[in-house]
């Protein structure tokens, strides 16, 4: 099974969902014309990233009759979509979410489980914490979605791996920073690329990050969206600092070859991991985050 994955990095209009929806639909048409089967957008692609007090005003529900999701679900009859949005649940909790849409249906919604609330980040102030990490089946294979900070922690990609994800897509909005020491890339670009490439190789899966571009006040997003293959090689990368649509054929038969050569998945000792994790948590009393429901 092979399919063509499109990554779209673009500038959003902060807090203007309908304008951003139009931009999505235009990019989707372009990607479709160029042969895409799946089109993935960055984190909070429908709203902009630093939404702060705009959160309740820009929230939507991934339902057929929603004015934002209606047109997206219609577009998903042509091509599968990954979009980022502020999700309001039935009890008006607001999540930083991404949805996978296909054939007019919502296949999966991932709610960000790690909300960075330190340094320049303040997501925990505005969003509720997601509490689930799960892979899901698509017409192109089993996928997993994580959002930005989720994959700065090693456990969510690991869980997706064990849950059967062969394609991991990581929408993100990474503020560019780190100019010392002087390198070709920003410090954040170097780190994200290193980590996602490592996941592809360590889990023998396809892994891609989709990072936005443009500015919000003085904050700059660096783009550089990339796809890595199950041998850890970089397959394609969008340019830094500018809007772009890049396409990459994802041939899942490469998984067969990679895992024949390097049987990391076969040899993964999940029972040992589970037993030792239980022992460590019991004996060492590691700090537990407050319950997130």
């Amino acid at each position, binding site marked *: 099974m092979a399919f063509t994955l499109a990554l779209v990095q673009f*500038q959003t209009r902060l807090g203007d969902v309908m304008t951003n929806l139009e931009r999505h639909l235009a990019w989707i048409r372009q990607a479709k014309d160029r042969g895409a089967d799946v089109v993935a957008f960055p984190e909070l692609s429908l709203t902009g990233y630093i939404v702060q007090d705009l959160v309740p005003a820009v929230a939507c529900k991934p339902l057929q009759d929603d004015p934002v999701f209606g047109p997206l679900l219609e577009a998903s009859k042509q091509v599968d979509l990954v979009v980022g949005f502020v999700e309001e649940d039935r009890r008006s909790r607001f999540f930083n979410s991404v949805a996978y849409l296909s054939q007019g249906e919502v296949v999966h919604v991932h709610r960000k489980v790690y909300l960075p609330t330190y340094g320049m980040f303040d997501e925990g102030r505005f969003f509720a914490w997601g509490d689930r990490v799960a892979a899901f089946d698509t017409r192109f294979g089993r996928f997993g979605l994580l959002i930005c900070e989720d994959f700065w922690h090693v456990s969510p990609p690991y869980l997706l791996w064990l849950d059967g994800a062969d394609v991991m897509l990581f929408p993100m909005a990474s503020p560019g920073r780190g100019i010392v*020491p002087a390198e070709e890339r920003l410090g954040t670009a170097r780190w994200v690329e290193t980590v996602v490439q490592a996941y592809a190789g360590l889990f023998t899966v396809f892994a891609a990050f989709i990072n936005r571009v443009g500015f919000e006040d003085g904050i700059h997003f660096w783009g550089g969206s990339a796809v890595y293959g199950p041998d850890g090689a970089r397959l394609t990368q969008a340019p830094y*600092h500018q809007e772009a649509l890049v396409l990459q054929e994802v041939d899942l038969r490469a998984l067969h070859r990679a895992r024949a050569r390097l049987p990391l998945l076969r040899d993964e000792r999940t029972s040992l991991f589970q037993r030792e994790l239980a022992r460590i948590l019991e004996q060492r009393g590691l700090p537990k985050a407050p319950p997130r429901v």
Partner: protein
Amino acid sequence: MTKPSLPFVDLSINTDLVRRILVDFIRTEITRAGFKRAVVGVSGGVDSALVCFLTAEALGPENVLALRMPYKTSSPESLEHARLVIERTGVQSRTVDITPMVDAYLERYAPDADRVRRGNVMARMRMLVLYDHSASFGGLVVGTGNKTEILLGYTTLYGDAAYALNPIGDLYKTQVWQLAEAVGVPEVIVKKAPSADLWVGQTDEGELGFSYRLADQILYRLVDERYTPEEVVAQGFPEEVVRAVVERMRRNHYKRIMPPIAKLSHRTVGYDFLYLRDWGTG
């Protein structure tokens, strides 16, 4: 002089990368606000020279107005260096002598003002001229303060610290020198001793009491790397300078933030009314 034995961190930057980001920043943030032009006060110093070069690159020189605003005590060299910047960048320019405005006030209402007060009046008069030209030229005022002077508070509140956006406020002075050289700011401007030129013979480093190179090393450790002042001293940096830097940073913090509003209601500007300036644009 700094001791060569000090463990200096290499603060060099990738100038191509930083230039790209800052030019994009100026263009994006000015156009999304509904403008296509900018106004820059060009003093003849390296900070405003760099900003003028970056802004000209971002918007096209025809969309940039460089203002030279000398006072009678300003060094002729400053005016000449500002002319060099205007010539090299090809931006539009105007010279506004602030002497009659400044003196009209000082002679009548503040004849005994010391040089610091006089300097502040000049800086704020320049702000007034810049903002009036912002309206007449239809461009946003681009700021020229660097990270070193912002952190040290070596700036006049509502004077040179007043602007619509600032491309170089996260670059230390030593990085400004490097980037200025890379974008083509004339060497004579990059190499000269930094001066606010508010009185004859004034130099930044003379007034501060330490060099920018040394201050940048200390600030980088304290601010970027989060070392304690004690740890910086233990690394061999002179204690009196470390103390002076820490104290300047603390004492001048008010210049870096919006003034506090007394909170009375459930929702108050500055505390829990949180929107970016770029709200609804882009």
